[in-house]
């Protein structure tokens, strides 16, 4: 059973529908006691970092997510949800994240070698795999759908599973221990996105969490 964390932001509908398509049971909840009973969490997110962290703090879900991660429960952050897993973000000021992964979210400069380029990074970009991960088992590097203006930098190299090139090296899949993130939207990334999501749910199934 997957628990989709409902803290008031994010496109829960398409994530939950994607899980239905691959036949994985899930609940959508903002209640700790319900989420605690699940085998793995998904932290979705669309919108601004500050607002999302504020909501997570107000509902004490940030504390709860950190506890869950500490006891070994798999967690997957998607898009903004991935950025929330890191130390901090520079989106509209400097704001603290959950601190489960090292690194921070910074704005695409929009300029490279004197050439201007478009921000947000929006559309289909190709993944480049850096190391093996349960998430990328038996999938081939192809295109996935990104929409974001901030990207993660300063991550630990051994946490970088896959990246994409958009004038910067953009961490696309990250993972350390039981904590994972995808900067793109797997639920919107066709067959590859669905395969990655399925790999995560498979990993959740195979992971024993102490209660």
């Amino acid at each position: 059973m997957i628990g989709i964390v409902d803290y008031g932001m994010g496109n829960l509908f398409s994530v939950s529908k994607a899980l239905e398509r691959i036949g994985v049971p899930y609940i959508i909840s903002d209640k700790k006691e319900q989420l605690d009973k699940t085998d793995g969490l998904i932290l979705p997110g669309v919108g601004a970092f500050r607002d999302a962290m504020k909501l997570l703090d107000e509902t004490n879900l940030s504390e709860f997510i950190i506890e869950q991660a500490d006891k070994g429960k798999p967690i997957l952050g998607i898009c903004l949800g991935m950025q929330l897993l890191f130390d901090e973000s520079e989106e509209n000021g400097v704001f603290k994240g959950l601190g489960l992964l090292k690194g921070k979210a910074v704005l695409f400069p929009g300029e490279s070698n004197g050439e201007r380029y478009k921000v947000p990074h929006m559309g289909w970009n190709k993944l480049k795999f850096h190391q093996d991960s349960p998430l990328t088992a038996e999938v081939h590097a192809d295109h996935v759908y990104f929409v974001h203006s901030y990207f993660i930098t300063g991550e630990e190299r051994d946490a970088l599973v896959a990246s994409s090139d958009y004038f910067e090296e953009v961490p696309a899949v990250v993972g350390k221990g039981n904590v994972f993130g995808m900067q793109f939207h797997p639920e919107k990334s066709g067959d590859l996105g669905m395969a990655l999501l399925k790999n995560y749910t498979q990993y959740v199934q195979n992971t024993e969490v102490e209660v």
Partner: protein
Amino acid sequence: MLTKRIIPCLDVKEGRVVKGIQFVELRDAGDPVELARAYDQQGADELVFLDISASHEGRKTMVDVVQGVAAELAIPFTVGGGINALEDMKRILRAGADKVSLNTAAVLRPELIREGAEYFGTQCIVVAIDAKWDEEAGTWRVYTHGGRKSTDKLVIDWVKEAASLGAGEILLTSMDRDGEKSGFNIALTKAVSEAVNIPVIASGGAGGSEHFTEVFTEGKADAALAASIFHYEETSVKEVKAHLKNEGVNVR
């Protein structure tokens, strides 16, 4: 690197796709979900649904359409038409759409762009612009109400304003080219793409694969949208992409 996007556009009225869709393989050419799936299979990078319902009931039906598409497909899509307030955006985005497109409502009240961007993030807010060449002004003018009303806004000023208010993308339709099949408006697309730092979707005038190459290379578009040439199977997304690949344009 990021690929150039090909985006078929579907007009939806009271929950049904209208304007002669002629896909032979479809059982029901009016079913938005079935059509969306057909385009997904052809390799469409995104879809745009334009709600042209005149009635309040029709608008409500759009929510069901959005849920249906989001439940079935794993590609992003935008919904435009009849989005006049933050409440409308919430309705559509919560039903599973990835972006909403604002047109007339944003011209009448530009703050709407900011409200949407602050609530959902800039990436959810597409500003659609109907542009027509104004001989007297020597530049393009913004039209509203489905191209029926001229405004006092010039296109280049308006895109800059929209971008500064938080638009995440511009959907630019050339009224001079729309339906002509003589190619996208390259000069307009290039001028807009260079005026702002957000992605620009070119629309209006697609008649064949070569027009897509042109709008990406010379027009500097980030994406290109077309309706009738795809609906009538004059070409397919697959064919256009094969052509683009051949011409050295990066596509998925």
